[in-house]
């Protein structure tokens, strides 16, 4: 499939300037971007309060739920806006458009966002639904092509290593036998409220590896906690945003790249105090344009 629309920062800024003052907010700009990529029907199905099938992005319910949905809407728009030049992006968006539940494609975009932040060349691929050929991403890891599959449906309300092991075990053959493979597993939001959830997930991966798989080189767990970030040098500027937290577990029995550490998310570390440009308000590399408190995040990109 050919590539789709591209939104440039300067186009976005020009549109922003035409908006009435009362509509100049980050929610407005996010909905505009989502419409460009996913269309008004998709917005009606997934964002509207009165939709038949409310989901992660529906503005409704309690104040907590409505605000969480707002954060997710802006986060989705950011991902679409920043990743629209990545190969295979259009396919990913098409899947999101047609799926009853947008969560799997949303998860793919989130992993894409972190690969992009960490400067890994990658592309979205169309899962073929066949044994050994049913994955979402292809990543160039030091000139080796790695096949990545994103799991966002771990069915358990409390942290449970057996659920993790079983999910990985049943999905193993989705990835090819003759290439390195990686699973990206999204941890359910409610797991993070339990003490020891991280150890439980790691044990799930270790138990999976002990069953003998060689094609899977690592499992990366990720969670999406919300935090508030204050601008370190601009008093009064703060934003509540969805972050990404990763744990990467390497398979000691891996068949590929025994000399490599197979970690993907350590290149960009916003909390690494040894890198003075980090710890920033953005919490992402400067190339990733934030939409929260628009147009604050566009500074330095106005002419692109």
């Amino acid at each position, binding site marked *: 499939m050919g590539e789709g629309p591209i939104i440039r920062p300067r186009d976005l800024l020009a549109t922003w300037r035409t908006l009435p003052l009362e509509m100049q907010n980050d*929610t407005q700009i996010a909905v505009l971007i989502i419409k460009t990529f996913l269309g008004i029907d998709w917005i009606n199905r997934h964002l509207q309060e009165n939709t038949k099938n409310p989901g992660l992005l529906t503005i409704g319910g309690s104040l907590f739920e409505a605000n969480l949905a707002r954060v997710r809407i802006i986060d989705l728009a950011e991902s679409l806006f920043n990743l629209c030049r990545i190969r295979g992006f259009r396919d990913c968006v098409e899947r999101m458009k047609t799926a009853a539940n947008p969560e799997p494609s949303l998860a793919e975009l989130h992993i894409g966002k972190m690969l992009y932040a960490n400067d890994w060349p990658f592309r979205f691929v169309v899962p073929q639904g066949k044994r050994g050929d049913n994955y979402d991403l292809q990543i160039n890891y030091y000139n080796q092509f790695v096949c990545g599959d994103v799991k966002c449906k771990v069915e358990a309300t409390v942290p449970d290593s057996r659920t993790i092991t079983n999910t990985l075990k049943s999905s193993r053959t989705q990835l090819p036998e003759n290439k390195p493979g990686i699973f990206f597993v999204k941890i359910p939001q409610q797991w993070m409220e339990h003490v020891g959830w991280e150890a439980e997930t790691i044990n799930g991966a270790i138990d999976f590896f002990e069953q003998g798989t060689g094609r899977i080189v690592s499992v990366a767990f990720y969670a999406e*906690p919300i935090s508030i*970030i204050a601008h370190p040098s601009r008093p009064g500027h703060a934003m509540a945003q969805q972050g990404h937290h990763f744990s990467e577990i390497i398979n000691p029995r891996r068949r590929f790249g025994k000399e490599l550490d197979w970690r993907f998310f350590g290149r960009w570390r916003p*909390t690494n105090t040894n890198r003075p440009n980090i710890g920033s308000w953005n919490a992402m590399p400067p190339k990733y344009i934030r939409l929260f408190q628009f147009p604050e995040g566009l500074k330095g990109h106005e002419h692109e």
Partner: protein
Amino acid sequence: MSAPLSAGAWEVLRALTLKIRIREFVDGWQAVGPWQEPTTSQLDSGVVRELLDHGFATREDLGIGRYLSITPLGERLLDKKTRDEIQAALQWVKDQ
């Protein structure tokens, strides 16, 4: 019930509804929690004062320290703003 809050004050109000804990220390207010990065968690005291002065937030002593919490007035204000903004955005894109 409109209030001329700064962008930072709105974000703090939103953070409170998203279960982020904001604690008062001797040198000011700070967001605390496992996901908070200490170097960027210190909040501007003027922003918090805005919320306290308008009655949209209050100090609450939880026995383990004093924390900021949203008041019913603050909840109503933010609820209206959140829903109004998204409805206005949805209407606008439909009209285009």
